[in-house]
């Protein structure tokens, strides 16, 4: 072994590819506004002054120290639940938009190869969003595991999963030939 990371808890708020980045950010901002939370630099600040780290990129993840997680867990659950409600509506709109884009593309006079390329891109976005929606509905821990696996596969790792008691063990392997 060479390096170890421990004592952190990760809380997945939004799975990757559920929504376009702008819509994902809008849903998150309206969620934290409704809950009277603030973002200061890369931290989410609660009304009682507690703060946790926030990573917003292709997905949204909250990062707490294991020692503070108990006192803050219910608030994190509130964020996730409220975000999920907003994201469900936003995702329906997003899928409708994609369907509309497909219809519009067919109406326009693209050549058949170009049209097929557009339709394939739209179908890919729809499939990714539907898969992300299934991940989003999982309990936080399982959703996090699925997102870790997706990230690892996208970065060229082979994933081996084993479940031991209440823990999920993932082994990300980069083969050396």
């Amino acid at each position, binding site marked *: 072994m*060479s390096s170890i990371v421990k004592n952190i808890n990760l809380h997945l708020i939004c799975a990757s590819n559920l929504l376009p980045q702008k819509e994902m950010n809008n849903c998150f901002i309206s969620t934290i506004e409704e809950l009277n939370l603030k973002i200061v630099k890369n931290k989410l600040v609660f009304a009682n002054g507690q703060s946790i780290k926030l990573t917003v990129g292709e997905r949204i993840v909250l990062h707490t120290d294991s020692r503070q*997680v108990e006192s803050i867990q219910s608030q994190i659950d509130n964020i996730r639940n409220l975000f999920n409600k907003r994201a469900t509506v936003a995702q329906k709109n997003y899928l409708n938009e994609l369907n509309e884009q497909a219809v519009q593309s067919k109406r326009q006079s693209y050549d058949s190869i170009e049209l097929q390329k557009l339709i394939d891109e739209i179908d890919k976005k729809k499939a990714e969003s539907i898969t992300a929606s299934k991940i989003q509905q999982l309990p936080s821990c399982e959703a996090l595991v699925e997102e870790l696996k997706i990230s690892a596969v996208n970065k060229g790792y082979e994933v081996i999963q084993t479940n031991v008691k209440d*823990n999920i063990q993932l082994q990300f392997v980069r083969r050396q030939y």
Partner: protein
Amino acid sequence: MNDKIINVTVSKDSKIYLETENYKGEACVDAIKELFDSFFELDKLEHTSEFYEKDEELKIEVSLK
């Protein structure tokens, strides 16, 4: 050649324990950052003795005919 491995244990309360295998030196930090940069900002790492060893050098031999 030893495969490069990152072991991740996720508990029910989403607690993460993460360790690298067969990496030496800064390569393990780079691997963790690459894999987890969209999940968290890496600020706390414990290093084992292997961290302070130099990573194996990649040697490529080319024979010109």
